[in-house]
């Protein structure tokens, strides 16, 4: 896996956001480079949710941030609604940015502790002077109502007076305040308890259907990503491995890394069948000096000589299901991939 190519991209006029050959590198003190994202291409249609999964350090957050130009990618293009954001600077970039909003992982530290909730939520509106002052106040109230926060009690309070789940709701209200076209959610539920996580996931789904939002949903939890996504991309060490519709991708993964991820997930069901998929040993190599060819080959159970020499290109395995691997898994290899959920729940 861990390959490059653009075979999976859809026609440009159908997509809201299109990342082309995105490369993000960070210099290190020793003169080396951290290869955070290497030649990743992705696109999202309007109203779609793209799930981006991978282990920590795989470049999923960097990809999301590069789309926002935070920081600008080292090379590549970010086509958003017909304009290439990488060519914009200064005020033209500022004008484009309200269209893209972000929700961060840690809800408490992503809100300014010294500001009141009403100021936090209306900051974007104030900066752009949207409507009159009274108008904005009403808008903040309706936003808070929308995300399930009691506006009367919350407006004049500070973030520390709220729980993690409530702070995340306030972050969501702030993100939708400017009526953005795209919301990038960077691990929005991984700091929350399971019962609160379910509330936030349902809220995001609800807002998405009401406003027709387009989202990039970055997370390491495959089950969470599957729950919210229309299309899922699996990343490893700065490269794309596999892209496909969530049901298909998790039912019959073709990339050995996706299969390994699926087999590693602890399933809340004691009757779950023992692992049918090949697991992986070892740990993610350093992005300072990634392996040649396919970046997953050092941990891959199917790696052969060719994987070290030649980087796999992304190709279509089944309609809408793309993989970057020389030796992808067939359906027969996988057997029953997704564990049944019987036994858990009511």
């Amino acid at each position, binding site marked *: 896996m861990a390959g490059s190519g653009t075979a999976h991209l859809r026609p440009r006029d159908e997509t809201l956001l299109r990342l082309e050959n995105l490369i993000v590198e960070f210099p290190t003190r020793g003169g080396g480079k951290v290869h955070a994202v290497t030649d990743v291409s992705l696109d999202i249609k309007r109203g*779609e949710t793209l799930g981006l999964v991978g*282990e*920590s350090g795989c470049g999923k957050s960097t990809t999301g941030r590069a789309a926002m130009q935070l920081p600008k990618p080292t090379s590549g293009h970010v086509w958003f609604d017909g304009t290439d954001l990488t060519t914009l600077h200064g005020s033209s970039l500022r004008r484009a940015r309200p269209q893209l909003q972000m929700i961060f992982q840690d809800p408490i530290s992503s809100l300014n502790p010294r500001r009141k909730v009403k100021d936090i939520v209306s900051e974007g509106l104030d900066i752009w002077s949207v409507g009159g002052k009274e108008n904005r106040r009403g808008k903040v109230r309706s936003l808070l109502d929308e995300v399930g926060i009691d506006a009367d009690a919350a407006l004049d309070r500070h973030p520390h007076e709220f*729980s993690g*789940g409530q702070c995340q709701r306030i972050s969501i209200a702030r993100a939708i305040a400017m009526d953005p076209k795209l919301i990038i959610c960077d691990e929005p539920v991984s700091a929350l*308890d*399971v*019962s*609160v*996580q*379910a*509330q936030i*996931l*349902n809220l995001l*789904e609800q807002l998405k259907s009401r406003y027709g939002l387009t989202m990039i949903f970055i997370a*390491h*939890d*495959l*089950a*969470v990503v*599957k*729950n*919210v*996504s*229309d299309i899922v991309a699996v990343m490893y060490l700065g490269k794309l491995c596999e892209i496909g*519709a*969530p*049901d298909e991708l*998790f039912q019959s993964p073709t990339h050995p890394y996706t299969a*390994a*991820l*699926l*087999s*590693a*997930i*602890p*399933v*809340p*069901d*004691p*009757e*779950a069948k023992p692992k049918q998929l090949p*697991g*992986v*040993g070892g*740990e*993610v190599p350093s992005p300072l000096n990634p392996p040649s060819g396919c970046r997953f080959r050092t941990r891959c159970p199917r790696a052969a000589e060719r994987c070290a020499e030649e980087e796999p290109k992304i190709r279509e395995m089944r309609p809408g299901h793309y993989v970057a691997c020389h030796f992808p898994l067939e359906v027969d290899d996988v057997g029953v991939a*997704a*564990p*049944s*959920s*019987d*036994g*858990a*729940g*009511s």
Partner: protein
Amino acid sequence: MWFRRRKRRSLDSADRFPSAPPDAPLLEVDDARTYFETDRGPVRAVDGVTFSLDRGKTLGIVGESGCGKTVLSRSVMGLLPKHNVIRSGSVKFEGQEIGNWGPDQMRPLWGTQMAMVFQDPMTSLNPVMSIGHQITEPLLYHFDIATGYARELAVALLQSVGIPEPERRLKQYPHELSGGMRQRVMIAIAMACGPKLLFADEPTTALDVTVQAQILDLLQTQQRERYMAMALVTHDLGVVAGRTDDIAVMYAGRLVEKAPTKILFSQPRMPYTEALMASIPKLGDAAHTRLATIPGRPPNLLNPPRGCKFSPRCAYVQDKCRVEEPPLRPGADGKHEFACWFPVGTPEGRAAFESNKKAGLAAVDARLSAETAPVEGVS
């Protein structure tokens, strides 16, 4: 070695801590309470917990953040701060009461009888001591052995926890290792003196999912090979599902349900357990499946609600629940314990749910909306 060595010089710990009659459980906790004193009153972090654990068994302790699961494990281990802590109840280890022991009394037990693996391998290792130093420290403290032999033991320990090139690792410092490797070192330190009881407090929360699977497998092998008792403390029901004999569910400082793992998952009796399971996204479900939620949030432990602590969020709640706190008591089969007046799956529970449904209770709506919401197609 610059650190203190114990006066006791024997490899055999049996005379130091005489073994109890073999029929008694290894660990017995009875009505343990741990309150923290604050300016606003006592925080009831652990509020009357009773359980026992046998050698060779694994107990999963599950709950959301703030439910008291970590404080419980630290209370048993005697690792609480000195001040502003009120403890009561009994903790018996091999039949001996250790609940009121201070650190000096506990020290011979730490490492040799009971050990702990902490959540964050980054901060629980000493950053300015080499790995070798940290592994040999408990060996040299407890046993009368030469430094060279302790290093040999350390190499063997590192090998047994799956660390490649153990000799080289001994000279390295924690920052030179990855998170997964650090957690392996923590496990090696915990295993060093052959404890009978291991507390693993969220051992994999800070790790990636592929590494998490490796560490959980490692803990399981070590537990089986050494015939230890293990308490696996976690917020993730998935982590405990395939790897424990029994599961205890905690809510607001109390155990609310305790059962053999399979029974707990197939027929949860406590509404909280049921709701918790329903709120987890599952890989087997189709995309965009609406999740069941638990309305509200856990109670403030400074001022917990009267009656059942879960009653304000419960879909089965009746007037009795708001007044009288249900005790943890065994059901008909004797093994499955739960603290609920109207248990899930019983006629009383069903009647309570139906009457709440008629009354339009919020918690019932949250449950029903998930069951009836149409599953959207995937474009």
